[in-house]
Each structure stands twice: as C-alpha cells, then as structure tokens.
C-alpha cells in the first residue's frame, strides 16, 4: 500500500492540473465562467487532500488548525469586500500568495543550517529564486495595496539615483547568492538576501503612479504565480510548477493588454515615474491655442433634456464614477432613459478603473447587463451616430490630444472618441487634469457641456430631472 501512495498522489496531481486548465478555459467565457471558477476550486481541494496523504505530512492537528484559520479569514474577507475595493483585495491576496511561496523556500532552506551538509547547488538556486520572487511579490503587493487604499500617496515616489540604488540592491543580491552557493549555508547571508528581496519589492512599486495600478496589479499577479512555481522547484512538486505557470501566463497576458491600452511599454510604466507632474508644462505645450478657452456649462435640467430626447446615449464611466460609488445611480439613469426609448450603451476603456475589467465588475454589481457594455474597438465607430456621450469621472481616456497632438505625453494612447459624438456631457468636479497631468481639449470643445459636481449627486439629479420629462 505504502509504495502505491506516492504514485496515487502524483496521479491525483495530474487530474487536478488538468482541471485547472479546464477551469481557466471556462473562466474565459461569460456563460461558463462561474462553473470554471468552481472547477478550479475543486481542483485545489483535490490537490490539498492528496498532499495531506503525503507520508511527509504528519503534523495534522496544527495543519488543520492553520487551514481553518486561513479559511475563516479568507471567507470573511471575500464576503465583506466592496466591489470598488477589489483591486486592493486582489493586490493583498497576491502578496499573501507570494509570502507563502517565499516562506516555503525559506523553511526548506532552514534544514541546511546547523547541519554540516553542503546544500546542493540546484536547491540553493531554486530557494533563492523562490525567496526573491516571493519577497518582491509580498512587499510590492503591500505597497500597491497601500497606494490603492490611500494609506500612502498614489503619486510616484522618486528620489535621486533611484535606478542606481535599485541596480546596487539587485547586484548585491546576485553577489550574495553566488557566495551562498559557493560556501556552506550561512544564516546571516541568507537572511540578508531575504531582506534585500523584500526591499526590492518596495523599490519596485513606489515609483509607479496610482493610475498605472492596473499594470502593476497584473504584473504582481503574474509574479505570485511565478513565486508558486519557484516554490514548486524548491519542493520538487509538479503541481505547484504547473499551477504557478498558469497564473504567471495569465498575469502576463493581462499586463500586456493593460500596457497596450495605454500605448506604453512595460519599461515605461515601471521606470518612468509617469504622472509626477513633470508634464506640468503640458497644458501650455499641448493644444498650442494659448488664447482663452471657453468652457460651456450645463445644468442638470438641460442635461436631462439632452439625454431624454436623444435617440442614442453612450455612457463613458471612469475611475471617478467608482470613487463616487455612482454606479447604482448610473444604472437608474439608464433605466429611466430606456423607458423614454433612448438606446443606452456603455463604453469601457481597457484601463478604466484600477485593475483590468474593474468597471465591468462595478456595473455588473449595479445590475447593468454585460451585453450593454462595449469594448473600445466596438464602440468607437459608433460615436459618430451617437447623440449624447455622457462622460462620468473619466478624463485621460477621452482626451482627443492622444490622437491629434504629438507633443502630448499621452499621444498615441487609444482613446474613446467621445469628441466625435454629436454632443458630449462631462460630469466632473473641476477642470483639473487627470492622472497623466494633461489638460483635456475635450472640455473646451464647442460640442461639449460641462456639468460640475460630484458624480453621484449629478447623476442622481439627472435621474430626477429625466423622470419629469
């Protein structure tokens, strides 16, 4: 019996790995997504049970206590979190996964301390990789969490010689690693390397601005998978390697989509300190029309009339809508307009919100059916036939300068072509610049009306005005 057990466990892992593929595949289509998530969860359960049967696992009582504690905390967190806070939540979970992987690597290496045995080169390398990736994922995610939660400023934190400091840290890690591999396992050096990994994670995320968080979260998601893979190399477990590689791949795919959505390279996002206001001169440099710009304001009554008597309305939600928690009011406005026979659609920019697909989740929470949400490529050709485009708390993603002004820092970024609609109403608190620190020509367009105020209040007022039409 006992010699069949390891084979049985391995075969069970094989089944679980296959189920992960099935689950992720199903997560990719709206009709099967929920089932896919369930399949993946079952695969995880199978894998955990199989591992508990492993001969090395003897410490059942404590392990079950640990699992119970983790499950309770996880379940409560999943129930309590607000949908607007999803980016932070996923960020934090990424960090936990990274931390767990790093701890596995550290714990495994600890066996060698005190013993005179030389650690084999291959395990030293895999352990150090696990510590590095896991450590960076942990602290990087914590900083991303703090930025998203508003615990620290979302603007990039830059200091002189930042790249040199980072290069030194990374170089130090490599030198220390070589030393550790060449000599007998030394506790102080190993701990120092662990500390350097943690510092690198902090250094990696602090120079990145709040608006670039969709990229960072995606990348850290990928890292958390790679960390699990690295832990798999450490404990020689294919299940970890496969599942980690899957997550690594999905994170990279999302990272690439997010970068494309901003027309920026990954290096630019990670190292440029974008949105510091170094583009502070941009309003002058942009446009070129130094003459006075005229802003047309509109009241909610007139705005409601424009919307109510339109044939087609496209709503462009941005992060401002999420911050103001206006998605339910927006849904109500949609209902009222549809009662009047107006065709309402939503235009979702790929990087709207603070994580990939964040707007879609918020609108789904407010019961907007997903067929009504249009991707950028689908909706852009339709703006010319749109009577009114209603922009709620979005800025840079509707800035026509991205198309027309090659001097603008956001030039080349794909945008929602709101300026092509017959009219545009922009709900915004003020004329302040968006994340990119660039003035928005749309606001001064002769077809654009500004509706100043908080997104939630303004939409609520529009709803009551539309009701009276």
């Amino acid at each position, binding site marked *: 019996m006992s010699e069949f057990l390891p084979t049985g466990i391995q075969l069970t892992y094989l089944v679980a790995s296959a189920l992960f*593929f099935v*689950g*992720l595949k199903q997560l*990719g*289509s709206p009709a099967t*997504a929920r089932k896919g*998530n369930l399949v*993946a*969860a079952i695969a*995880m359960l199978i894998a*955990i049970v199989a591992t508990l049967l*492993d001969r*090395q*696992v*003897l*410490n059942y009582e404590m392990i079950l206590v*640990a699992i119970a504690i*983790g*499950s309770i*905390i*996880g*379940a409560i*967190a999943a*129930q309590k*979190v607000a949908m607007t806070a999803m980016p932070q939540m996923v960020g934090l*979970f*990424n960090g*936990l*996964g990274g*931390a*767990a*992987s790093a*701890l*596995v690597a550290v*714990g495994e290496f*600890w066996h060698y301390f005190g013993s005179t045995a030389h650690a084999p080169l*291959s395990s030293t390398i895999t352990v150090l990789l696990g510590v590095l990736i896991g450590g960076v994922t942990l602290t990087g995610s914590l900083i991303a969490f703090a930025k998203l939660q508003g615990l620290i400023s979302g603007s990039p934190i830059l200091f002189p010689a930042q790249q040199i400091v980072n290069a030194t840290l990374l170089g130090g890690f490599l030198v220390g690693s070589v030393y550790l591999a060449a000599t007998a396992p030394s506790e102080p050096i190993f701990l120092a390397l662990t500390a350097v990994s943690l510092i690198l994670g902090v250094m990696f995320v602090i120079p990145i601005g709040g608006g670039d968080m969709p990229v960072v979260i*995606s990348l850290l998601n990928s890292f958390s998978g790679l960390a*699990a893979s690295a832990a*798999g*190399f450490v*404990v*020689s*477990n294919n*299940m970890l*390697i*496969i599942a*980690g*590689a*899957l997550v690594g791949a*999905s994170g990279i795919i999302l990272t690439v989509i997010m970068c494309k959505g901003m027309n920026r390279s990954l290096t630019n996002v990670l190292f440029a300190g974008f949105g510091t206001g170094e583009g502070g001169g941009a309003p002058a440099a942009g446009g070129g029309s130094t003459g006075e710009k005229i802003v047309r304001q509109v009241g909610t009554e007139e705005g409601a009339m424009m919307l109510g008597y339109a044939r087609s309305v496209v709503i462009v939600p941005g992060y401002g809508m999420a911050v103001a928690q206006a998605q339910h009011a927006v849904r109500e406005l949609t209902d009222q307009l549809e009662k009047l026979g107006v065709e309402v659609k939503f235009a979702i920019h*790929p990087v709207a919100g603070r*994580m*990939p*697909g*964040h707007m*879609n989740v918020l609108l*789904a929470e407010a019961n907007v059916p*997903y067929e*009504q949400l249009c991707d950028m490529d689908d909706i852009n050709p339709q703006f010319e036939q749109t009577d009114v485009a209603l922009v709620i708390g979005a800025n840079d993603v509707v800035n026509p300068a991205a198309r027309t002004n090659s001097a603008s820092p956001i030039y080349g970024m794909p945008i929602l072509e709101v300026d092509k609609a017959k009219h545009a109403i922009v709900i915004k608190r003020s004329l302040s610049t968006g994340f990119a620190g660039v003035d928005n020509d749309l606001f001064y367009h002769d077809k654009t009306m500004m509706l100043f105020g908080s997104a939630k209040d303004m939409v609520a007022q529009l709803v009551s005005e539309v009701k009276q039409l």
Partner: protein
Amino acid sequence: MDDALISALFVFVLASFAGFEVINKVPPTLHTPLMSGANAISGIAVLGALIVAGDRSWDITVILGLVAVVLATINVVGGFLVTDRMLQMFKKKESKA
C-alpha cells in the same frame, strides 16, 4: 544539473505555453474575475507549505510552514469565494415584465 530539475523545467515551460494558449482572448468583462481566479490558483503554494509544515518535530521550518499554510489558505479560500461573488453578478439582460 540533476535530471529532476531538468524535467521540472520542461514542465514549467510547457505549462506556461499551454497557459498562454488557454487564457488568451478573454473578453474585458472577465478580466477582473480571471485575475482573482488566477490569484486563488496561485495559492497552490499551500501544497508546498503543507509539506514543509508536515514534520512532527517543532522547529523553525515547521513554524514557517504553518504560517505559510495560513497565508496561502486565505489566498485560496478568499480568492475563489470573491471570484464567485463577482461572477454571480454578471447577468444577461433579464426579460422585462
């Protein structure tokens, strides 16, 4: 390098490629659930944690392993539940009465 490491590398590289193929072309609507679902899967590190924490004798390795089990379980349970909570909200347009 030993054979075990080489075959592990094979598994890693091939699984990555397969992952790219399976996940590519996910509609933007599902980006957030995909990420949080993948995030839950990255909690697979719990298996490593279980093995490390499995020893009967108390030492630092076991303690680190147990901490890792707690963290990874939060990741797994929280991740799958929150993904389900989100996906529950994605609905087709209900027919109006």
